[in-house]
């Protein structure tokens, strides 16, 4: 591996800008870091170059730990968005800068300069001043300058940001060919997904300071794991649908339906006059609401109606109000459309996201209580960020001791924390509802997430939930392992090993990097102490047995002032 990042974290005024990012880039690889502005991608790149110090974690270049090494000694080439050429020097002098610093001989400098100018296609431009060049040419010079000292790593920070579309494409091609020719390990930062697809051998998508997913472009496009990646890499319709829960039926309990998040790319939708004329699986009926001709493709927005669902009760319940569809020219010719027309929508390919957090349903005893919970700004923010539904379900007997049979709420059930909370949780768990989020009405957005599972049964579910949650919450996370005090040495070693297992499982399964801590003591006491130590924390808790809440866990849900608890 030529570039290895290990849990790199950078904070500005207490807020993590780069949050526990681990990444390995292979030698000669062109890696593209993609993310919206403010996602921390540029900060991460500067941290690799040594222009920004990291607060935590390690940066390794070709096996050498450079975390505390200055940018001067890291031997990297860096290209800035605004070129950052030295304007009082000629193009040639700019390119020679690194060689002059290193006191190379004049003949060698000239040879290298000619070679680089040739490489970027600006031969004989040595004597120009940067201001006499166009933006695209200036950026070429900046690339040549960054390569002069033969760095082992080339880092590009939005190099095309200030250029117009045509030059952008030309320069993109140059950079790609230069990179191939030199075989230099390269990381490029951009917010443009088209650019990322065109250049990257592999992409990493960042949001809120976290590296959400990394992989080959085609993989990330067709099989994203997160909502953010699904919608950031191209257009996507996110659908909520009910599916039979996978896995074997547990004894005494019926197989239940589960809500999942599915992604439908606009080009994977099919439109037909009627359900029977669809060649793909039927999704529902809808009206053409908007049409846009964009040259090669036609963009449509279909408002999904209820009449279709009534006429042909579909297998899956549809949640979105509208669906975006793109159609190619042949498709348009085969079935011309006008706005307002009723069409049947079919799906060629649907990808189900592996996230356990689909939508939120607030469950409360009264309308008022439900409204109070729904007004919690962290919850509304979270739902908005996840682009999902937030609904309410009123059940007068929810906090009662005896189990009252009721409908299972969809997605994550949200209940108020406090005195009645354990009963509410028990009732919901009894109906097979997981996960459950216990939320104090005045809960603030957490800055730290404590993760703990009380039994191996909940391990996988807890990990998946944590991974899903952290992708939408700008908070640091820590896995807390707790062993009874006075455990023998052997148990303790096993505990540490287990935590490391968890870490690698989170890394392998979810691309999620978390810190781990091991405590000795009573499980509940340790958790209470940890959560009470500072405000702005939340707990993700894996229950020791599926579907039940032990007596001693009640203390975690009834504290005041409390904290959000997400139960798996």
């Amino acid at each position: 591996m030529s570039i290895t990042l290990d849990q790199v974290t950078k904070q500005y005024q207490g807020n993590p800008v780069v949050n526990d990012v681990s990444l390995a880039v292979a030698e000669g690889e062109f890696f593209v870091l993609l993310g919206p502005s403010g996602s921390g991608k540029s900060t991460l790149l500067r941290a690799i170059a040594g222009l920004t110090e990291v607060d935590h974690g390690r940066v390794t270049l070709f096996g050498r730990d450079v975390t505390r090494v200055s940018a001067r000694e890291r031997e990297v080439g860096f290209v800035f968005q605004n070129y950052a050429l030295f304007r009082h020097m000629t193009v040639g002098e700019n390119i020679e800068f690194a060689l002059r610093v290193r006191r190379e001989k004049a003949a060698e400098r000239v040879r290298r300069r000619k070679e680089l100018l040739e490489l970027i296609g600006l031969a004989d431009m040595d004597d120009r001043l940067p201001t006499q060049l166009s933006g695209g040419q200036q950026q070429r010079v900046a690339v040549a300058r960054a390569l002069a000292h033969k760095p082992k790593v080339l880092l590009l920070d939005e190099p095309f940001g200030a250029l117009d579309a045509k030059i952008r494409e030309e320069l993109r091609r140059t950079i790609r060919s230069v990179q191939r020719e030199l075989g230099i390990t390269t990381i490029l930062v951009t917010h443009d997904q088209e650019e990322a697809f065109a250049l990257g051998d592999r992409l990493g998508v960042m949001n809120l300071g976290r590296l959400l997913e990394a992989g080959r472009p085609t993989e990330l496009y067709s099989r994203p794991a997160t909502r953010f990646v699904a919608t950031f890499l191209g257009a996507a319709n996110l659908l909520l649908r009910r599916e039979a829960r996978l896995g074997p039926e547990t004894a005494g309990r019926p197989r239940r339906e589960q809500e999942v998040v599915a992604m439908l790319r606009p080009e994977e939708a099919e439109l037909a006059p009627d359900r029977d004329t669809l060649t793909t699986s039927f999704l529902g009926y809808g009206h053409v609401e908007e049409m846009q001709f964009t040259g090669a493709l036609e963009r449509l927005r279909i408002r999904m109606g209820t009449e279709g669902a009534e006429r042909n009760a579909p297998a899956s319940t549809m949640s979105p109000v509208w669906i975006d569809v793109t159609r190619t020219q042949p498709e348009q010719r085969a079935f011309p459309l006008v706005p307002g027309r009723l069409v049947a929508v079919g799906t060629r390919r649907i990808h189900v996201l592996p996230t356990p957090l689909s939508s939120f349903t607030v469950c409360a005893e009264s309308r008022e209580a439900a409204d109070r919970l729904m007004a919690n700004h962290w919850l509304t923010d979270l739902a908005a960020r996840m682009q999902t539904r937030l609904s309410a379900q009123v059940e007068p007997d929810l906090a009662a001791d005896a189990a009252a049979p009721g409908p299972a709420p969809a997605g994550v059930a949200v209940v108020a924390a406090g005195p009645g909370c354990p009963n509410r949780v028990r009732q919901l768990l009894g109906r097979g509802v997981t996960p459950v989020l216990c939320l104090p009405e005045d809960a603030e957005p957490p800055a730290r997430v404590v993760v703990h599972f009380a039994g191996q049964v909940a391990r996988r579910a807890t990990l998946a939930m944590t991974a899903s949650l952290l992708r939408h919450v700008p908070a640091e996370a820590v896995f807390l392992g707790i062993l009874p005090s006075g455990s023998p040495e052997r148990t303790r070693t096993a505990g540490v090993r287990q935590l490391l297992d968890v870490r690698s499982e989170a890394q392998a399964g979810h691309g999620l990097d978390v810190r781990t801590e091991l405590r000795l003591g009573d499980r509940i006491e340790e958790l209470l102490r940890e959560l009470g130590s500072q405000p702005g924390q939340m707990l993700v808790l894996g229950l020791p047995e599926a579907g039940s809440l032990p007596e001693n866990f009640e203390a975690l849900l009834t504290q005041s002032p409390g904290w959000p608890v997400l139960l798996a």
Partner: protein
Amino acid sequence: MSSFRQPSVLPGFGLTLGFATFFLSAIVLLPLAALVLKTASMSWADFVAVVLSPRALASYRLSFGASLVAALINTVFGFIVAWTLVRYEFPGRKVLDAMIDMPFALPTAVSGIALTAVFAQNGWIGQYLEPWGIKVAYTWLGVTVALTLIGLPFVVRSVQPSLLEVQRDLEDAAETLGATPLYIFRRIIFPTVLPALASGFTLAFARAIGEYGSVIFIAGNLPMKTEITPLLIVIKLEEFDYNGAAALGFVMLAMSFVMLLSINLVQAWGRRQIVAARR
């Protein structure tokens, strides 16, 4: 002529050029012309006697010498002040920034009296310098101090914008290319601010040559020792020797013009050196 014409928000090229010429003539050229005419009415022998008298020569030395030293001091310290103001964020930065302009606004006589009070033998600073045998007030040192005070804002205000222009990215770029902080300063920052620094120097120098109010209080005005040329002119005027005053004024004008012109030429040459493609 038409090739100069560029569409502009201001009306008509002819009108604006005419106004500029008229304004410059009325405010600057006419009084100067009057000065030259007045001088021209003297006989050559009279003129030489006035402008080359030992007292006049001593005053030139002090005026131009002290102005040069003051402008050099300002160039160094003005750069440091500007650097501090641009590069660091600290409480009271805005206040300090505003204080830089104080010498602009203060009546120069006030600053002169204040400096004298501070640097006199029993003044706040003067009393500590006294035991070391350093006398500031009523010596050429005092003149230099006064000229430094009034020239500082010129350098700071010239350099500030160009320092703002040295983007952090440039330094970051140089650092990734392997340059040390000293090298970055020498090769990147300094060349970028050099033109601004030179024009700041010129302005401070020009202002110091013409300064009168603040100097006369701290200089002590001993003939042949601490008498600046502007003071000599005023003395001539008080003696109703208008021709002599005009002659001295003319010499100052000529010398300042030559010096400023040469500084500007050197600057322009430097710019061309940079622009001209080497090799």
